[in-house]
């Protein structure tokens, strides 16, 4: 199915996707696909979450829109007012859905808004009215300056032509979402290693985080400033070890990576010569 592919690693929260959406849908009536978008709605929205701390903070920026689920709760709630097109896009019929708040409430992604003025649930249409006119992609994708949003055919994506594994947002909701994601945020452990005797940043320290329950390990070398970042970790508690030739081995345990911790400055002492 042709759908939007979201890559949070390429998002700058410029919100051009949101604005393109509003430019297209506010004050414009694209019935029967959609009525004008209500005020303060975000049919596509960049959600920001700050994680980490200090100089190793990070803003996770995940763009969320209607996931055009195969098993869409809004279709069930709509009692005929919400339908799936042949191309897979889920559309709220702006005539039939009048007054049906259950459609908005049914969405576990919070992607359906309620327009009080029109008494109507509203959401992303994948710009179906434009696609039907022969446009090549939805407006938000065209507006994105850094390919954080692209329009792809997921049937054609394989491990060979994808730069990261394909994911879905909250598959545990069980709605079979059809918008695709890569690089969805996961916890990291970050810090910097140095030698306090020489007051020197330590590069090429092998840093390994091992999940204390599953035993799954993840490794990275520190960079020239001694900085390391172990990324895409499963949430949980970790043992983090530091190894470099000529230095005392070090191990930190119970590092809590349910959030993304910045373990700040890690001291490695040179081995006695």
């Amino acid at each position, binding site marked *: 199915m042709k759908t939007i592919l979201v890559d949070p690693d390429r998002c*700058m*929260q410029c919100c051009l996707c949101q604005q393109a959406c509003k*430019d297209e849908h506010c004050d414009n009536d694209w019935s029967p696909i959609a009525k004008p978008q209500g005020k303060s709605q975000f049919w596509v929205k960049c959600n920001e979450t700050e994680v980490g701390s200090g100089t190793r903070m990070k803003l996770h920026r995940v763009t969320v829109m209607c996931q055009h689920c195969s098993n869409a709760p809004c279709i069930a709630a709509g009692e005929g007012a919400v339908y799936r097109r042949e191309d897979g896009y889920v559309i709220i019929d702006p005539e039939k859905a009048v007054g049906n708040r259950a459609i908005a409430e049914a969405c576990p992604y919070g992607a359906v808004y309620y327009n009080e003025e029109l008494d109507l649930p509203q959401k992303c249409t994948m710009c179906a009215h434009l696609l039907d006119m022969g446009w090549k992609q939805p407006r938000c994708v*065209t*507006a*994105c300056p850094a*390919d954080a949003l692209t329009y792809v055919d997921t049937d054609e994506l394989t491990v060979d032509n994808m730069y990261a594994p394909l994911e879905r947002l909250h598959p545990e909701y069980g709605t079979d979402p059809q918008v695709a994601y890569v690089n969805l945020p996961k916890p990291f452990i970050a810090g910097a290693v140095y030698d306090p005797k020489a*007051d020197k940043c330590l590069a090429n320290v092998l840093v390994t985080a091992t999940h204390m329950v599953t035993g799954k390990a993840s490794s990275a070398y520190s960079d020239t400033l001694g900085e390391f970042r172990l990324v895409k970790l499963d949430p949980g508690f970790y043992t983090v070890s530091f190894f470099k030739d000529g230095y005392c081995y070090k191990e930190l345990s119970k590092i809590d990576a349910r959030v993304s911790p910045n373990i700040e400055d890690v001291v490695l002492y040179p081995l006695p010569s």
Partner: protein
Amino acid sequence: MAETPRYPSSDGTTRLTTCSTSGPMFVHVKDDKIVRIEPMQFEPGEAKSWKVVQNGKEYKPPLIQPLLQWGLASKQSVYSENRVKYPLKRVDWDPNGERNTENRGVSGYERISWDEAYAIIETEMRRILDTYGPSAFAYSYSAHPEWGSLHFLFSDLFRFWHMIGATHREFTPNSWEGWACGAPFLWGDWQGHGLPPATDSLQDITRESELIILWGTDPIMHNTYNGIDTGRLWKYWNDLGKRVIVIDPLYNETGMFTADSWIRIIPGTDNAMGCAIAYIWITEGLYDQEYLDTHAVGFDEDHLPEGAPAGKSFKTYILGEAEDGIPKTPEWASKICGVPVRVIKQIAYEWASKPTSMWVLTGGACRRTFAHEFARLFGTLQVMQGFGKPGVNMLSPGLFIAGPYDGEKQIGPTGYADGGMNVVLDNYYPNKVKQSITFQKFYDCVYNPPQKWHGGHQDNFNPEMYLETCEYPMPGHSECHFYWQRGGTLTNQPGKMLRDHVAYKSPKVETFVVADVYFNRDCRYADLVLPITTLFERQDITEPGSVGQYVPTAVINLRSAVYSKKCIEPIGESKTDLEIFEELARRLGYGDQFMEGNTEETILEKMYTRTNIPMEYDDFKEKGYYVWPAIEDYVENKQWKDFYEDPENHPLDTPTGKVEIFSTLIWNYYGPDNPEIPVVPHYIEEKEGRYDPLAEKYPFQDLQAHPKFRFHGKFDDCEWLTENYKVYGPDGYPYEPAYINPDDAARLGIEHGDIIRAFNDRGGVLAGAQLTHRVMPGVVWLTYGAWNDPLEPTPCKLDRSGDINAITNPDPMSVHHVGGAYNSTLVGIEKADLEALAREYPEGFAGKYRTSNWKG
């Protein structure tokens, strides 16, 4: 040639083209209404693209040209409630009676007809000419008006006022203040007033640079004409494995998007770290002595300029062998700048060992007290590494990163000059009034004439010119009494707001006319406000990225020309500046001198004829754009390449023709020991900085990194933008965000979303606290450009909108430069008691003094 529609327009719209400050656009119009706005998109194969290839990876400019943040919100700005729709007159300004100038900023406005407006202006101008002569006129402008070439300040405004004769109320290059007033003494002026050119930097960095340092700069989100369109380029450099380090009090957007590491540095202490880097290089031999010997003067005692006093070389200063006796060790620097010694050392080693491109030109560090020292020192550091070598560059966020450029594939002549219509009309009128007022001196000129200063010009074409004296009034000239401003807003620009507000209330300012699209802060002080069209309401020919032709090379996209079609009829009774000046010229007896019998249309055609675009004009207008093909047999010539390779035959524009680490001009003008501008670059503890005793009272350094969703002061009223960053208070008001480190906030008992007051001796502003680790402790990022909403008639005492410029530092940078210290601003922060304030300022909270409240 008929246009082949890219998309069927079965929705009944017509696709037109234009170009804006956010980039080139397709505008879909139906029934004189804008239906949608898209980024301009070229057809594949439409033009032969340039590209760079490195390690098998290719960068090609995109066919869809990304817009900046406000571009897609244009429908909101075009149809904004805050448009000036009709000529307006301040209700209590009577040009034939009481002018009530003290009521500017408080009184409301009434609608008048264009005939009335023209008649008043004509009468006032004749009176001024008869009473004082033309030097009593002063014209000024916003540096960032609506996009255009013909409809641009160097075109219509300059032509009209130079024809009449008027005092130029000018501003200094305040985007790169420290570089503009410092770097020319180090390496000459260049076209960019201290900033070396950018052409071919993109290719050189791609091929040669291994390390990129962003020192206090945010190239992706600096938000002036470009930025976000470089996002793909930065990812390309990431893919090539270029190491990116950001050194900044703020983890900026480019840093978060690309950097491997963020190093937090205390604002205003950059030179301490810079000196320590020089110390490490000198003591460990990690610099290019041979290059310095042939390309520079003043690095060491053996290479001082002729006759210079001994003991004044840079090396002597750095090693602590000069008067201060302080070796500039990393240990010394670390205590000042807060960066660990080991990190300073590692940065020094890494910078010296890898071809390094630095984004350091412009940026917040150059707009502080003594910022010319920042420019001179960081220029010196890169010169120590052989500036001009492959991969060794200095760059600026915005306008100073560029791909191939040949000076021909463009719309018009470039440079800060009288451009636009002046290039194609038969007669050119040099301004007969030589007097000027530098904006930072406006208040002093109004209240305390005579005034003398130097270096206040917008354009200095060589370092010597920088030191020429300006006088106000000049001999044989009048003080100014009639002020004309094209576009806004200037009053919420850096560091002089309070003084401006007070100055505008002076009875000496007899008449103040503002011609603007939006009713902004300057309008609130005007006597007459004239409604101007947006770029969507008139035609023009421009090219993206060139800023009305005064910045030629700043394009990383395909080089293109765009026809700005008149997309909709003017809103209300708005007119172009050109129309207004044409009418005034006729009324004042200049007949046809202004337009020389031309119309907007014929001038555009003449401008077009000067280009090398191989299309008939009508075809160009119909298609709406032209893409120039890649330059054939292109020979790159990146910044400083010629000087690097052959300094004898390509001397710099300095007295010695070399890099003057020891400045002979500074030595001659200020003597060898001026504590505010020494002969070689120094670290000087800044005024109103972290170590100023005032910091005990006001402990936060305010950071004014550009607003992410505004263009300086523009688009503060577009909800599609503001809803992404404003902090909505319990009273529903959209407060400007103040970003604070969570540790500081915890100490002050401030929570995320609380409304706070930031204050100092100058006044206070309200803002919404946003807790984030992006900002280092001791610093608050509360930026400028919100539309003022004073809570009482006394300007700047307490501003609800949160425009920090109400209380920023208006003082000179140093004895050397009249302005530009506004980033050296200390503030205190406390939780605001909104309910108490609402009780104290009922009128203010009702919006009585609000910028947009033109009814008063």
